[in-house]
């Protein structure tokens, strides 16, 4: 945490506000719990043993540090700035989600909680949560929209193999936001023994802060690796944004480096001009949902509308509150990429680098393509390859009209 009053890294304030965003908009039943969690998190932050255990698990269980990779053939194919990737898809369970789950389950154990719940959209956070629950021997219930259960059956099976109970949620439209509602309902009814592992940098304070902190290992490593490899920092960071945790994890350690520009990439779905997108920042308005104030997809009456994206990990109608603040301050630029563009970028990376990316970072890769072309070869772009694409091959095959 910086002591510089003009730092971009000293948010949130003591009430959990990032400027006007964030906060603790929860039912009274949960309020004492989130206050407890904050107290326990502060104690953990001050405890070298907690940090040691976190670091040890990240190294020996997750496989960190993840490599920093210069994508030479992709760079040549695009014809502009050098494209580098932070390879968080090589983590155990295949995405960045596990970083946060390790941190939160250590907190849960510290707090004496004996039951873990989580929500999941595409299933990546559900798999990561089920994984750490198996590792620590805690029972795990994962809420997943019934529609997502159908679309992501391999991940449902993975969670079951890991010993988790997967509860299909039929309320609402049966997607991620409904799964989160159900997670909150479970939590409110089981406050005495249950810890809710939220999967992104959103929810009531202190979740946005602690998820960001656990994910910041991505940016801390990348900063050091860049110095070691090229002796300087990158010119531009790029990351995809659903709730925004992988982007914050990469961006946060660089926020006070004025020469490093940052680009967050939302899902434009079928295009921002219609309703079929998941771009809360570019196509939404500030409001309150799931414990925090942030940009939301909503109508004139404040009713929440459904996001759409080819990537199940991005179609959430909200966004972490720190991104809302970073947008308003102008520190981070935000753009959006359509389903079509992401699908193109997905195939491009497969063919040029032999890496099958998840559809989430495919959005980032598409944005990199556009930007790199306008930059010189000595410029450096660092993008977060936050997940591998095995889970998405069925969706991609369907979109490409291939029978599997």
């Amino acid at each position, binding site marked *: 945490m910086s002591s510089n009053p003009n730092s971009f890294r000293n948010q949130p304030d003591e009430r959990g506000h990032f400027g006007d965003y964030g906060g603790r908009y929860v039912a009274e039943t949960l309020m004492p719990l989130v206050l407890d969690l904050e107290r326990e998190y502060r104690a953990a932050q001050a405890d070298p043993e907690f940090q040691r255990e976190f670091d040890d698990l990240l190294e020996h269980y997750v496989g960190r540090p993840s490599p920093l990779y210069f994508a030479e053939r992709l760079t040549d194919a695009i014809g502009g700035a050098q494209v580098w990737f932070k390879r968080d898809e090589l983590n155990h369970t295949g995405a960045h989600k596990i970083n946060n789950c390790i941190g939160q389950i250590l907190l849960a154990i510290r707090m004496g909680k004996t039951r873990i719940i989580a929500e999941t959209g595409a299933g990546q956070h559900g798999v990561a949560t089920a994984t750490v629950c198996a590792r620590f021997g805690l029972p795990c219930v994962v809420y997943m929209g019934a529609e997502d259960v159908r679309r992501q059956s391999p991940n449902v099976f993975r969670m079951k193999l890991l010993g988790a109970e997967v509860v299909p949620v039929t309320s609402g439209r049966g997607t991620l936001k409904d799964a989160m509602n159900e997670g909150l309902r479970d939590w409110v009814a089981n406050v005495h023994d249950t810890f809710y592992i939220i999967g992104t940098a959103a929810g009531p304070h202190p979740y946005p802060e602690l998820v960001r902190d656990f994910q910041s290992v991505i940016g801390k490593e990348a900063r050091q690796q860049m110095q070691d490899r090229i002796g300087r920092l990158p010119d531009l960071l790029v990351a995809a944004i659903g709730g925004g945790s992988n982007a914050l994890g990469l961006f946060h350690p660089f926020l006070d480096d004025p020469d490093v520009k940052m680009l967050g990439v939302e899902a434009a779905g079928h295009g921002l001009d219609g309703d079929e997108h998941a771009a809360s920042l570019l196509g939404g308005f500030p409001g309150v949902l799931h414990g925090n104030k942030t940009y939301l997809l909503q109508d004139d009456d404040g*009713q929440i509308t459904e996001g759409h994206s080819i990537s199940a990990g991005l179609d959430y109608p909200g966004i972490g509150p720190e991104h809302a603040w970073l947008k308003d301050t102008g520190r981070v630029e935000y753009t959006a990429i359509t389903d079509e563009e992401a699908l193109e970028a997905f195939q491009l990376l497969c063919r040029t680098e032999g890496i099958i990316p998840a559809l989430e970072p495919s959005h980032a890769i598409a944005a990199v393509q556009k930007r790199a072309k306008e930059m010189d070869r000595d410029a450096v772009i660092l993008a977060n390859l936050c997940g591998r694409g095995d889970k998405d091959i069925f969706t991609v095959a369907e979109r490409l009209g291939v029978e599997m």
Partner: protein
Amino acid sequence: MTISNRLSNAFSKPHPALVCFVTAGDGDTAANLDALVEGGADVIELGMPFTDPMADGPAIQQANIRSLGAGTTTADVLRMARKFRERHPHVPLVLMGYANPMIRRGPEWFANAAKEAGVDGVICVDIPPEEDDALGPQLRGAGIAPIRLATPTTDAKRLPKVLEGSGGFLYYVSVAGITGKQQAAQTSIDEAVARLKAATDLPIAVGFGVRTPEQAGEIAKVADGVVVGSALVELVGEHGADAPAKLREYTASLAKAVHSAAKASK
């Protein structure tokens, strides 16, 4: 009659108050509300529908879906409130719901619109005292009571914070959970109400999981008011256009039990 008078009068009657909840725009709201009043409800809670009712169980979730599916807007809810006020000038009316629909057009807008509609109090489930700035000052400025919730997890240290700036009555959520599911043990309610009464002069109304006249009557022996929601909302869901007669009948059975309980001593 001024706003605060209607609520305080309802809790100054010689008997405990019956507080009845239905969701706005679910069925014929005007007829449903009239039936509650005719059945003997002392305070009306009108639920503002929301797409993501995180604190509600299946019954009220379904009511929200039915209402929004029928196209209910915020303007409709306010119109229903205003019409109710015209028909029932003396019955207190409380809007209950979630933050986002309330603050969408700005908290001043909502507080003024609610005041013009004759609303006496507002219960916002997801604005705890820590976030009071989001709506509380505007409600108080408009003379509308911000009604807060206390729960089994609200400990003695926290209670003063919950009470500060709250008005109308204190809504005690008798179970840690969502609406309409489990019911709390009577002894835990007795203890909690005694604890709350020692801390505030606000009337205490107890809700969540109260379904039957027997339960309501037991709670009315210790509390100033009893809130019934899901059981009424289920009648609306089940009987649709025929709901008013059922609501009137069920409310009457609840009112009989609540009103015949001895008024709790302060």
